[in-house]
């Protein structure tokens, strides 16, 4: 599936009311580790069919980042049935990202 660009406007539709789990990558352009993690997250988005992958730029979406209490980036958050079920801070390997969502 294609990577979703997450905004306050599409949050409800893409995440809150999603029937599939959603992996959200909180990042910013000035964060080196984030930019290294992004290609891995993008690759996952292209590969998987059992969950959605969204990317949220914390500079553009300060309210969303605030709502999630993001204080460190990159932060990955997993949402299932509209609720946060898992979270990881910092750069982690691809297999760890997958198990963050799939358990």
């Amino acid at each position: 599936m294609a990577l979703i660009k997450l905004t306050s406007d599409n949050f409800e539709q893409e995440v809150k009311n999603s029937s599939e789990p959603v992996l959200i990558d909180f990042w910013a352009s000035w964060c080196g580790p984030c930019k290294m993690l992004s290609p891995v997250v993008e690759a996952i988005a292209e590969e998987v069919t059992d969950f959605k992958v969204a990317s949220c730029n914390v500079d553009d979406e300060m309210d969303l980042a605030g709502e999630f209490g993001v204080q460190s980036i990159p932060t990955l958050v997993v949402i299932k049935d509209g609720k946060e079920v898992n979270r990881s801070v910092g750069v982690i390997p691809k297999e760890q990202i997958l198990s963050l969502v799939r358990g």
Partner: protein
Amino acid sequence: MTDIIIVGAGTAGLTAAIYAQRAGKSVMLFEGTAVGGQIINTPDVENYPGIAHTSGFEFANALFEQAKSFGAEIRYEAVKEIRDEGAVKKVLTGSGEYEAKAVILATGAKNRPLGLAREQDLIGHGISYCATCDGMFYRGKDVAVAGGGNTALEDALFLTNFCRHVYLIHRRDAFRGDEKNVSLLKAKENVEFVLNANVTSILGDDKVEGVEVTDKFSGEKRELPVSGFFIAVGQMPANEAFSGIVTLDDKGYISAGESCETGTAGIFTAGDCRTKEVRQLTTAASDGAVAALAAAKYVESLAE
């Protein structure tokens, strides 16, 4: 079979990939987390010869592109084990098994924690090891930095630009970092040096609300009310998985001299993971070149 497998895609590993491929060897590069290594956390790089100024991310990205341009295959898999079967080295990751004639361990180093209670639990809730990543979340707030090297000094400098007050906590009275950074910091009005002091406790339940520091000499305790605590107390290696095939020193670094030879035939090491005095971008790049050429020579000797 691949000629040379390189474990770690930081400055040393990527440089080794360039040199090995230019020496006509096939290369497979393994990276467990993100390409680029530690330098991606550094906003300004101003001490790499020939490059007056760049950012760590730009540097790492350019190096990665350069390594790829020669045909290096990159796999995002953490190497869990290496089996030395003489002329063949088996490299095991969580998802596969690969074979090479030679291996270069360029595993780098990772941030050293202070070892305080709840330090790991509060990462992302006030505790950070990367000021350039997380500093912006503390705009207008009070923060503390712990450490005495260039990373701590640069982190403190970076934070002074938008935080209200920055405490710099160091367990000695002199800094290991560059004098230039120290004088830049001294000129800032919103920095307070807390010297000869150890951080003894993190305050706050679900998020950082302060740190407790203890004076090294008087034993006097003081609470600093901060919402962000940036830890920059150096690095530590991550070579446990390879202790069976190479010798580690008492700190966990791979024992090898400037030749980058580990003492195990066909296994070389490069960069911050090796026992050495100076860990800089330039020395990582230097090691990468030395290890790659030694490995290439070893691979050629197998064919004879």
